[in-house]
């Protein structure tokens, strides 16, 4: 069985000003199969977002190891992790996180530009059309609605054919109707491209759609549920 993500004995803690330590994550273990989906749920402060960040190589664990696409992330420098993200990882954030000074098209092109790829404009346009923004390519983030911005973010996340997509509350800032559209789009493209999906959410219905739910509480993994679809 091929695993794209392996999390072993991961802990994350912070030193407090008074010398004490605050443990956010405690001895987390799980593996994620290539092309599958997984949701991380739990109450606020349970460590969901921290775990997502660690899995994506955005931060370093205090202990344990994380292996992404056979690369052990905690042995890499920040720049090497940036390279790994660029090659294998896509992101969708709750606050969209588009670059405000770039147009929709340019935002989508950036990951490939960073790879040094050429002739990427048509691919970016195709992807924008795929997310329903074929006519808005020249618009800047400030000229787009929340839902449209998230569509651009999805197009940006998928342009590099990532092996794994990390989504942090992707519908958290959207109304119900728009959220539904975005969810549908996200899962659809994910399926088309056979990408692994790791998602943090509060929405249990949405979590169920991924097929597997990890439940965190107080920094510990308390449940690992496979949902039959």
């Amino acid at each position, binding site marked *: 069985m091929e695993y794209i993500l392996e999390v072993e004995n991961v802990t994350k803690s912070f030193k407090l000003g008074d010398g004490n330590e605050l443990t956010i994550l405690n001895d987390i273990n799980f593996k994620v199969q290539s092309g599958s989906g997984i949701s991380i749920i739990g109450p606020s402060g349970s460590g969901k977002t921290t775990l997502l960040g660690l899995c*994506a190589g955005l931060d370093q664990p205090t202990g344990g190891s994380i292996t992404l696409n056979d690369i052990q992330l905690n042995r890499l420098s920040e720049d090497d992790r940036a*390279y790994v993200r660029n090659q294998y990882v896509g992101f969708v*954030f709750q*606050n969209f996180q588009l*670059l405000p000074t770039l147009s929709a098209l340019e935002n989508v092109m950036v990951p490939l530009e960073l790879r*040094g790829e050429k002739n990427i404009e048509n691919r970016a346009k195709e992807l924008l059309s795929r997310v329903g923004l074929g006519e808005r390519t020249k618009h800047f983030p400030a000229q787009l609605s929340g839902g449209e911005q998230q569509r651009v973010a999805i197009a940006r996340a998928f342009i590099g054919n990532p092996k794994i997509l990390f989504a942090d509350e992707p519908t958290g800032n959207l109304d119900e109707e728009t959220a539904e559209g975005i969810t549908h789009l996200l899962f659809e493209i994910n399926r088309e491209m056979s990408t692994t999906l790791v998602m943090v959410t509060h929405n249990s219905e949405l979590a169920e759609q991924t097929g597997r739910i990890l439940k965190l509480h107080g920094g510990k993994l308390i449940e690992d549920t496979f949902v039959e679809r």
Partner: protein
Amino acid sequence: MDYIIKIIRKKKHPFFSKTTWRLAWKDARFNIGRLMLFISSIIIGVAGLVAINSFNENLQNDIDEQAKDLLGADLAIESDNYPFADSLIHPVDTLGLEIASDARFASMVYFPKNSGSRLIRVIALEGMYPFYGVIELTEGSNIKDFRDGNSVLIDESLALQFEINVNDSLKLGNGVFHISGIVIQFPGSTSVTTTFTPSVYLPYSRVEETGLIQYGSRVEYNRYYRMEEENVQKAVEYVETIEDENDYDWSTVESRKEDLSKGFQNLYRYFRLLGFVALILGCIGVASSVFVYMREKRNSAAVLRCIGASGWQIFWIFFIQVSVLGIIGSILGVTAGIGIQYFLPWVVSDFLPLEVSLFLSWKSVGEGLLVGLIISILFSALPLTNIRFVAPMELIRGNENPSRIRSKFRIFIIALILLFPWLFAYYQTDDLLKGSAFYFGLLFAFVCLYFISRGLIFFLQKVMPKNLRFIWKQGFSNLFRPNNQTSVLVIVIGLGAFLISTMSLIQNSLLGQVEFVGSGERSNTVLFDIQPYQKEGVLNLVKEYDIPIQQEVPIVTMRLQGVRGRTIEEIREDTSEHVSDWALTHEYRVTYRDSLISSEKLAEGELMKGSYNEGDSLFISISDRLAERLDLKLKDELVFNVQGLPITTYVGSTREVDWQRVQTNFMVVFPKGVLETAPQFFVVIARIDNKQVAANFQQDLVKTYPNVSLIDLNLILNTIDDIFNKIAFVIRFMALFSIITGLLVLSGAVINSKYARLKENVLLRTIGALQKQINGMTLIEYGYLGLFSGLAGSILALIASWALAEFFFDTLFFPDFISLVIIWIVISLLTIFIGWYNSRSILKSSPLEVLRRET
């Protein structure tokens, strides 16, 4: 087993990657406005530097090129009051290829054509002087007639004033002369000096006809030589052996160059100091604007990090933006600087003794571009290095207090930032000691302001009453709460206030040097060179015209012979003595009286009242500056040589004298009853309000007493006002550079502080704070910061400008408290205004809108 994973990828330096440049451009194209402060800081800093240094270079170059023409000879020797003794000067004469001489003295001139008269300088010329350069004459002038001894020449300003043409005549003393030419330019004269005291050029052979050289007339004798270069040094060596006892002075082309450069030293120094200050303010502007910019860009950097950009790649994206804008700013600054440089000579040409040519100083251009690039890169490097370390997790977690990063590169940059102003100060002053003093002075101000800010925070925490009204409590608390910007703002606002006020105070001190202080009752007419036998007649004439006499001053000339029991020669040979050589050898003009005049104040001791009784110790009064120069205390002995007769005196008192006043001020005042019988002459000071009376009186005086000179101070004061305004304009214009830069920098710093309060204010607004409450808190916080920092900066500026005036410009310190207070108020108001302006975006929008946008 431990193992290492390496990712081997083709590495191309991000700087050379097209992607980096493309991203830099894409990100920058809509951000130019945000970097306006950055570009303005560079433009103004570089423009000031280029204009100042380029003009200085032009002037220096012209001095070098024109020094020979200005002197008109290879060697000039000057003798005060006594003609050259043939036996003494003979060894020099034998070295000369060609010799010329002149005698210069002040006199009244009278034009029969229109009965005009005024004080002029007579230059009685013998020989073919000038040997280099020419006497520039108007068309129709006949210099041959003058050289043949048949006629005189007059300055153009004099001809214009009295509408005199070639072939008119004039009366000098007892002689009437035919005018054969009008002089536009005589070697060494400026249009200012000729407007002040225009000259009449007289063949030396005809001086006697005037009968003007009498006892007490100040006559300066000059001797000019054309000689081989190697002989100039020999001649100078000889003159140096006889100059002290004969009161000779000499000038060569080289020494004239030095004198000219020294003459403009204070102007140079002030300009160079302004250049330094403009640049330092520029540096602060660059650092603070890039800091703000990078803060805004943290999120974009985190996004780029998330999608795979390396820290260095992000660094280079913003580095390219900053460098390209730095280069554009430098080019614009250099262009503006050149524009100003072309404008400066037009303003200052009147008081320069030489024609300032305008050439593009490539050195200054290169210097401007280089310095612009250095400051734009160096002072933005620190915020740029921070962006390298933006954690991608900031996107999810947010990070309001990025931890300080310690990297070797950062330490290296900090070291360069500390070193650069030092090196630049040294370069600008061309003096390691003075450059270091500038630098450490600035550093001292910086450290002081830091401690003041800490003190302010400590004080507020300790004394703030608990029961203050909400907005007061909130406003003051903002100054010491976590994430406060008190230290940063106190330092930047204080430093801005410090530099602006220092420049303003120094400007006042320099202007004070040339300003005339006097009331509406000031004297406007001075009659001098009145011989004792003429005194009664002149006074009667004054009375006839009903002119009120304000002062009647006797003057006796004398020299020092001994100080505290030692002869002048002994003191001068003693290398351990550090008294002023000038004060030892100077010919003193001394008066006698038993009371103080309005421009004097007693500093120490007592002025001798009544008349001196023979046999008593003779106590005199000296000016405090002379006491300082000769290192004298009360009761110290001074022996004066009065026309060959030694008189032993003791210091009885010292006086503070306001030398800026148009008065007959004296370094040495004798009591009555000592000098009355010594050879002397008189000066009468009066005030004539009616122009017609003044003209008639002048005519009568010139006709009856041709050797008595009259100075019309109104004429001089008007000319001085005109020149003074021009100098003041130049100084103010240049000072404006540092002030504008300072204000820009202040604005940048205060705008920057917006981020500290933004979130808090939005939340307050969300939970129901009213507009006036937010305004009130902002006014209290920024008002307190502005007032306190401005005051601290102003006090430091007082100390710094005193030190600069005293040790750098060697001038009296005239603190102008009104300007200081105005600057303080303006800076405080500006701080409050920008603080209020910052919060407008919150107040004008709905809380939700702002929360969505900003949080």
